[in-house]
């Protein structure tokens, strides 16, 4: 296994999901945005120091991002959201859009719908499909299950699990520890910007102190 991401005490290897756990204000979003380049900090991406790279360069290097709250481009259609988020040449881009529409049937049913007309679950799938357009090697997901119906959460987690089969690495920031640990291989608990616990998903899930640690106690 090779590390695709190393930032401070957090690392993610190819083909694995690492759960980034913590309550509100723990620093999960800041850490993800630092990986993406919105904040300064030492970041190793795909075995190289990426600290000096711009956000655009990190995305081109293979980082995909699904932000908290989905933040799809509201006035653009589903198809336009996917196309606008890709740097592939035109023919490959259009082909990739069709692949995404086939992979996410709830998007495939409404490719010409404006994004603001979609349900929360559909918007989340669109945000995920958008991040996958250029086949990222590392996906950063910030609270992807927030506000979703249970059936959509199950579908989403199943898809994330399947994504790692081709070597895609996922750093999954979640407040809902049990959900994240159910598909993760390892987990890291953050509190006030510091790593306070780490371990395998099974160890963390069985840790009686987990809830207290996530609450910052």
């Amino acid at each position: 296994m090779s590390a695709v991401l190393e930032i401070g005490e957090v690392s993610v290897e190819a083909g694995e999901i690492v759960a980034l756990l913590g309550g509100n204000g723990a620093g999960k979003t800041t850490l993800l945005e630092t990986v993406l380049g919105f904040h300064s900090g030492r970041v190793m991406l795909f075995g190289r120091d990426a600290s000096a790279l711009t956000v655009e360069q990190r995305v081109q290097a293979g980082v995909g991002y699904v932000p908290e709250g989905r933040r799809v481009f509201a006035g653009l259609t589903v198809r336009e959201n996917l196309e606008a988020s890709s740097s592939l040449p035109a023919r490959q881009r259009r082909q990739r859009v069709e692949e995404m529409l086939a992979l996410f049937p709830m998007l495939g049913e409404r490719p010409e719908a404006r994004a603001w007309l979609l349900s929360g679950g559909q918007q989340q799938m669109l945000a995920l499909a958008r991040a996958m357009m250029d086949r990222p090697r590392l996906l950063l997901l910030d609270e992807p299950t927030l506000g979703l119906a249970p059936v959509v959460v199950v579908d989403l987690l199943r898809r994330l699990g399947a994504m790692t089969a081709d070597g895609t690495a996922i750093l999954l920031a979640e407040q809902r520890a049990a959900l994240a640990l159910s598909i993760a291989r390892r987990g890291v608990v953050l509190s006030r910007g510091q790593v306070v616990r780490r371990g395998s998903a099974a160890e963390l899930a069985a840790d009686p102190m987990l809830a207290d640690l996530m609450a910052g106690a």
Partner: protein
Amino acid sequence: MAYALVALGFVLALNASGAVNFAHGDLVVLGGAVAVFVGLATGLPAVLLLPLVALAIGVVGILAARIAILPLASRPPEATFVATIALAAIIEQSLTIAMAGAPRTAPPIAGSGSFEIAGLVLGRQPLAIVVLGAVLVAAVWFLLERTQTGRRMRAVAADRHMARAVGIPVGRYVILSLALAGALAGVAGFLLGHQFLVAPTQGAGHMLKAYIAVALGGWGSVPGALLGALGIGIFETFVAARFGDAWASAALYICVLAVLVLRPQGLFGEPVGRRA
């Protein structure tokens, strides 16, 4: 139709930069002035002069982005307001000096005079303005709706932070939008400069009309801005013909107030709660 071009450029700049470009009206005047001076100096026909004016004011739009908008992108919007107001004042005062305060006439696009079709007398210049305006609006629509460049410009307008996060080079698209806004302002200035003369102090008036068109149509809505501008033009024309110019202006502002009270998001704006 010329007001539609002004409003279209205004809303493109607004969406790209996230702040009002108060120099936009003065870019319109500058377009008229460049048409006057370059036309006089070179004697070029309007068909060649027009792209030159569009190019020149497009470059000024890029300079505006580089000097007064992009460097202030991380500051509160008020910083851009003040910077673009300063830019507007610089353009206005420079034109006042260059034109010695005297209004000038830009050359006509399609010659003077009129012709008759089925008993209807049509002026060459007004018809040229309508046709050229319609062609340019259609071209911008095609760019925004049917090309990857346009999709990315709209993505940047919708959410600049997220556009960066998916790898869109936001600064490049802001500059492109400002260049396009400038080119449209330049063309509008050329077209209006023959109908209504070119005077250095007209910028604020153009700016106000564009602002009203965008507020009426829906803040940030491109089709809304176009319809708002066309509505203003038609409304003013008919009310002025019946009651005079003063009543036309007063009635326009009363209608604007009424629309904004009854529908604050404008006629075609999205209610905030529906935004993703």
